[in-house]
């Protein structure tokens, strides 16, 4: 098992290395003259030359690439052009908010999506199955930014039962930072009012963000279950006298979710993308709002750092997914190709 995990990590490294190279190419090659881009529209040729020298842009391209790689490896992603603060610092401050949101969405999608898929498969071609089918296709067709606005319109503006935007109620203050996740930190501090507030603020963004994930998880669980229900071991287990609930909800489901788990890994990229829009609309102080702000202020350093960080998170999630899969299905770790 340990060897398997190590191998998955090693396999993820080339893609991460490629990602570093790609960010380099994006900054140095595509904008034409990055010095001019850095200096801004009103810069004089002398200022541009100065910036070129300062950032080492007058060196050979290969040397620049090596410098860039070294900087990334040592965690130096440069300073934000907008705020002048180190980009890593700003990202570290915002990452927990995004992680809390995406985890909440993933959690919702999983605990609703898997039972939905299960029930749909057990009622194959029945009314429940048709509803889940429509939901799983429709859920992937809704634009998250539009859904966010509609939910705001109904639940925050019209019914006024959920907060419109933000992550906390300022009057309640913040719990001491331990994990950076407000729901957990408030519980650790024993502040249930803050916990309730954090959850309250999380509801609309998490619901908006979870819908596409819920749709795919329900869909993959359904097809996985349908496939597994044809297997001989299901018949054998029935003959041997497994209880109905245990047979479907544990015994067969575990086989069916191996596919779903892979899907969750692939979903993570979509979740991060969705988070950009959802955060922008709900004023959620995470990486997404940071990225949007970086676009508006033409802060390309910040934007590239976000690309890199998100790429790393994505790679980590995919390694975790592989490990989870090996835990669910013991044959995975032993399958040496």
């Amino acid at each position: 098992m340990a060897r398997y995990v190590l191998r998955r990590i090693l396999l993820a490294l080339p893609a991460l290395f490629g990602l570093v190279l790609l960010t380099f190419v994006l900054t140095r090659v595509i904008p034409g003259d990055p010095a001019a881009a850095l200096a801004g529209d009103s810069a004089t040729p002398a200022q541009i030359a100065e910036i070129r020298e300062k950032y080492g842009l007058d060196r050979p391209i290969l040397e620049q690439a090596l410098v860039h790689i070294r900087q990334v490896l040592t965690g130096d992603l440069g300073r934000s052009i907008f705020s002048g603060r180190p980009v890593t610092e700003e990202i570290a401050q915002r990452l927990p908010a995004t992680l809390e949101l995406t985890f909440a969405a993933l959690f919702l999608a999983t605990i609703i999506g898997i039972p939905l898929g299960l029930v749909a498969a057990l009622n194959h071609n029945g009314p429940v199955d048709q509803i889940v089918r429509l939901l799983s296709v429709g859920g992937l067709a809704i634009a998250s930014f539009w859904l966010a606005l509609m939910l705001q319109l109904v639940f925050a503006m019209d019914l006024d039962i959920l907060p419109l935007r933000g992550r906390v109620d300022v009057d309640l203050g913040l719990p001491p930072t331990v994990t950076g996740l407000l729901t957990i930190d408030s519980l650790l501090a024993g502040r249930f009012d803050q916990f309730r507030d954090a959850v309250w603020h999380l509801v609309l963004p998490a619901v908006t963000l979870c819908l596409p994930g819920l749709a795919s998880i329900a869909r993959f669980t359904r097809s996985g279950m349908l496939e597994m229900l044809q297997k001989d071991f299901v018949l054998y287990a029935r003959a041997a006298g497994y209880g109905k609930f245990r047979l479907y909800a544990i015994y067969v489901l575990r086989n069916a979710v191996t596919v779903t788990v892979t899907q969750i890994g692939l979903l993570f990229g979509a979740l991060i993308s969705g988070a950009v829009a959802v955060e922008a609309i709900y004023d959620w102080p995470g990486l997404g709002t940071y990225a949007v702000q970086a676009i508006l202020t033409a802060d390309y350093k910040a934007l590239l750092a976000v690309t890199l960080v998100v790429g790393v998170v994505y790679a980590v999630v995919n390694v975790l997914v592989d490990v989870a899969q090996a835990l669910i299905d013991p044959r995975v770790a032993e399958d040496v190709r």
Partner: protein
Amino acid sequence: MSASDARSVEPSHAAPLPGNPGEGRGGLKRPRPRFPALRRLLRDPVATFGLALVLFAVFVAIFAPWLAPYPEDAFESHILQRLRPPSAEFPFGTDNLGRDVLSRVILGTRSALLVAVAVVGASLAIGVPVGLVAGWRDGWLSELLMRVTDVFLAVPQLILALALGQLLAPGLTTAMLALALTYWPFFARTVYAETRRLRGALFVDALAGIGASTPRILLLHVLPNAAPAIVIRATIGMGFTILTAALLGFLGVGAAPPDPDWGLAVAEARQHLPEAWWFPTFPGLAILLLVLGFNLLGDGLRDIADPRLRRSRH
């Protein structure tokens, strides 16, 4: 993403083996029904509904200037009648500049479909050759191509699109370029998997044995067999592209005012909530319906291609 795993490997009927035309089916004179896939699709009401939505959108896009009640509202504004609620005169209401929302939704269909077609087309043009070459050969070229594909897949699509859109001048062309650059890896993966699968098939060995050239095998035999998987991918990709393009428009790195763009309209409507509920609602519904159409169609096609999940069973 294993829509095709269960399908058996057999040569496509569009490409009979050279040297034995019609042999083996000599006794069967009954004409094959034309468009068998379409017939099967039409038997599935939900997929048919998807197809109808897509065809309707194509129709609207083509005849948009004639269908829109106020085609000049693409660019003109009428400040005096701004933010009117839906009425007989303006069924979907008017926007912040007094333009007819219905007209702009109709006119926006054209750009939405255009972006989708262009992006999916460009992604096909990059992804299919990469997948074919990488899947057919072993060696450094294949490795390199697939590693590059993996890198592009590792970057979250939207973020890369945003970064690109920022580095180049923001606009619809940049958005399309960014979307194509981030979508081709999906086609490369699909075609790669199909080519790998077919490479081991007996009929391909037979073709190589009788001396067919590699390009010939790839273009006339492997590609037609990989076509169902590619078509399904492309259909779902159309819906996905429309969604992402709308999001780019919403975030201000896609279509620019005063273009009648659905995503942009939702963004413009934000400041006028909750009063002007109709302003974001109808453009959003248009996105939903068109993407739903493509997704249902893709779903139906997948069911046809993958007998394992076919609903007519039991």
